[in-house]
């Protein structure tokens, strides 16, 4: 799966604050490490060699070794100073994170499920809310407030390029602030172990220009169009009379179950199965037929469907853009 995922290439203020702190911390730690290592190596080189017959040096028993004590005390004092610097840096970065602007923030509810992400774009006007899954579009330069909750076990929302992680905990609603300053596709993944397919619980955050975002969200608000040709109509019927609608929802049809990801605009997404499978007709068909080959243990059951039915179903799903 493509897309950046790197802590040290921040694409937004939250990650940037942390990256700055990272470089500061790394510099201090590297200096400390080198100092200790050099002292240690000098000690090893300069100390004379001994063997089992060498009598022990008991002089230290009688003396407090004031010079050594002084040197060690200075070293300890230096470490305390270094630690205080780190503490100050850490608290400053934490403050900066806490002060990130929230005005005009975009509100998004993310619910973690085994093993996919349910995404609801909030809006004061209920009719303007919409639901999608595993792909989060955000406008560049606008703060985003994510409210994170869990539908089952604990998950953790992590997009390294944009912000630190935050857990999704049953019984709690946590918020995460982030913002993208650069357009791009940023990969995220569940960071808290959540069972069989923890490894493939990915998602993408796509930061785009406000215009592109507006266009995208308008498209997402539209319900699915009724199929127009016989092939896709058959797929539509199969979807609604078979097993699909037991778990999935497509706005504009009777399918409204929420056990699996919302499929209203499934064909507009880049990935299937929370980042595990590229979204093209062949992979979609393969996924429907046997999800276990991609994500063993996934909740979606296999379907030994005749080829013509599978093709019709895929053809229909491909219309959901």
């Amino acid at each position, binding site marked *: 799966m493509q897309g950046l995922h790197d802590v040290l290439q921040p694409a937004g203020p939250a990650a940037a604050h942390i990256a700055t702190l990272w470089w500061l911390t790394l510099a201090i730690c590297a200096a400390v490490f080198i100092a200790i290592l050099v002292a240690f190596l000098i000690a090893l080189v300069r100390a004379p060699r001994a063997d*089992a017959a060498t009598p022990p040096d008991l002089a230290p028993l009688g003396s407090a070794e004031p010079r050594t*004590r002084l040197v060690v005390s200075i070293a300890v004092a230096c470490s305390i100073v270094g630690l205080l610097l780190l503490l100050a840096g850490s608290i400053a970065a*934490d403050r900066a994170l806490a002060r990130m602007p929230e005005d005009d923030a975009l509100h998004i509810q993310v619910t973690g499920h085994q093993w996919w992400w349910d995404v609801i774009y909030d809006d004061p006007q209920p009719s303007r809310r919409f639901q999608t899954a595993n792909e989060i579009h955000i406008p560049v330069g606008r703060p985003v407030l994510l409210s994170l909750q869990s539908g089952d076990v604990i998950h953790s929302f992590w997009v390294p390029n944009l912000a630190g992680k935050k857990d999704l905990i049953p019984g709690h609603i946590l918020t995460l602030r982030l913002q993208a300053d650069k357009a791009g596709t940023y990969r995220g993944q569940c960071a808290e172990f959540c069972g069989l397919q923890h490894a493939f619980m990915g998602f993408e955050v796509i930061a785009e220009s406000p215009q592109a975002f507006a266009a995208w969200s308008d498209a997402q608000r539209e319900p699915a169009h009724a199929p127009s040709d016989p092939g896709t109509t058959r797929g539509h019927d199969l979807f609604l009379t078979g097993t699909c609608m037991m778990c999935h929802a497509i706005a504009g049809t009777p399918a409204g179950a929420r056990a699996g990801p919302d499929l209203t605009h499934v064909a507009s997404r880049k990935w299937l199965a929370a980042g595990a499978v590229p979204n093209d007709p062949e992979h979609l068909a393969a996924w429907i037929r046997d999800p276990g080959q991609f994500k*063993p243990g996934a909740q979606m059951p296999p379907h030994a469907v005749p080829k013509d039915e599978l093709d019709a179903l895929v053809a229909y799903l491909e219309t959901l853009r």
Partner: protein
Amino acid sequence: MTDAYVAMPEPAAAQALERTWRDPPGFLGWLAAVNHKSIGRRFIVTAFGFFVAAGLLAAVMRLQLSRPDNHIVGPDLYNRIFTLHGTAMMFLFAVPVMQAMAVYLVPLMIGTRSTAFPRMTAYAYWVYLFGGLMIFIAFLLAMGPDNGWFNYVPLSGPQYSSGKRSDFWAQLITFTEVSGLLVSVDIITTVFKLRAPGMTLARMPLFVWAMLVTAFMIIFAMPAVMLSSTMLIMDRLVGTHFFNPADGGDPLLWQHLFWFFGHPEVYFIFIPALGFMSSIIATFARRPIFGHTAMVLALIATAFFAFGLWVHHMFATNVPDLGKAFFTAMSLMIAIPSAVQIFCWIATLWKGRLYMTSALLFTLGFFFILVIGGLTGLILGSVPLDLQVHDSYFVVAHLHYVLIGGAVFPLFGAWYYWFPKITGRLMDERLGRWNFWLFFIAFNVTFYPMHHLGLEGMPRRVYTYAAATGWGPLNLLASVGAVVIALSVLLFIVNAVKSLRSGELAGPNPWRAPSLEWAADSPPAAYDFAAIPVVASREPLWDARPAPSHVTGLATDVREGVSTTVIDALPDHRYTFPSPTPWTFLAAVATTVMFISSIFTPWAVVWGSIPIIITLIAWFWPTREETAKHLALEKRP
């Protein structure tokens, strides 16, 4: 001066002591043994066995992760493997092996003949062994736990973890806690009350200090996880709601209780290793450790700080701001006592004369590896940085740098150092050096790349990853390193077996070390010391022999020792140690039956207690024969 420290007994007295203190003969006698060296040896070997088993699991994981989209093991098996790897390394190897070393070494180091409660030690060993066997058997039967060594609810709770997998994990905790807590009580009492006359607290070796501090930490930390694992098994078996958010519970309660134990746990692995370091460095730098007092205070300070940073495992949950600042500060401040110790050791090395042995090499490895691990620990203690690297491979790298660099390297050093004491033969130095350099280089090859993997966004506990993530090459490198680590551990085993058979005979004090265990024979006689030594120095074997130099007047036909006062180690009374008994073993069997049965039915707690009570009464009930012997020696206070 070394060899003559403890007066030689008359042969007849030595024979009588040998008869009194040796393990009873035969297989039943083996089960009944309570001698701290027999139990200690078994404990060490068992813990090493679990280390190898858990290491093999790690090898399978590295094999699986060596390339992207690998399907050597599926997600279910992988989850069981990484769970058992972590669980076994933490609960069946790292903590018990330190206690095992203490059970063997502490009585020798403080100049007595046994731990305070030898039967309890034996019972603790059996319980530990049975618990460990239980979890590995469960693993082989597809019933092994699969939710990580931290076993977070609700994933491990009744709704999301079917069957008995989590329950086996919870009961493993009960087994190891019972064992660990009992050994801790034993160690504290031994250290407080059985030190050789004259060994004031100030004269106590640093390793003994380390174990004393560790034992206290265990007593105050382990109950938290014992409580939480009990809550978990009750949630799963009898429908309580401790972790059910819909009925007033909270999954975060688990995390608080677990990490209130889990973070100090790192330090009960690390602090004993600091004790090894001090023992080994003093001997091979040929001088007393610089800053003994500072070292002791640093150990104690570490123990206190260790209880104040559990929340840094939970920064990604909702922690209030003030709390975050506090826990960040604590997480950084705990570096100070460690820094003090590191500087004192460097000063010791700087001013010493170095006897380069494999034992010293392994402890020197600490300076490179642990320092990196400690510094990355500061990164994890800082809230903003933690939010990025938490639960990523960066943490995997960090924790292995800390635990392997901070505990396993000193432990291997300790094994090279005390092997001659325990077996009477020296280990092969040439193989030892190969062992060290292979381990040291391979360790860094394996774990250093994981820092970068974490920064590149690789989360922990994934059974595989897609090729497009770009994580493949570094993972392959790590896997190659892991193979070499396995080779180096194999080399250690070869060295140990070979040396056991044909190693050079060591004599009582091959390294010319300062502490009392080196005054005993190698291997020590069943009674440790023919005469209990009297101590007037912190480095008794380096210093001149004090006068009086040893204790007389102890019975030879009963297991008798001197109990001394807590601080000044003045003679207080003659203490009679209990004799071998098979009831400790039987009590452990009864305990095992109860613990395992209670996985399946809560009523096992009731009926399973009856055999335990019976075996415990039989264990405590005095025999007329022994009582008669005691009465002959009795003197009222």
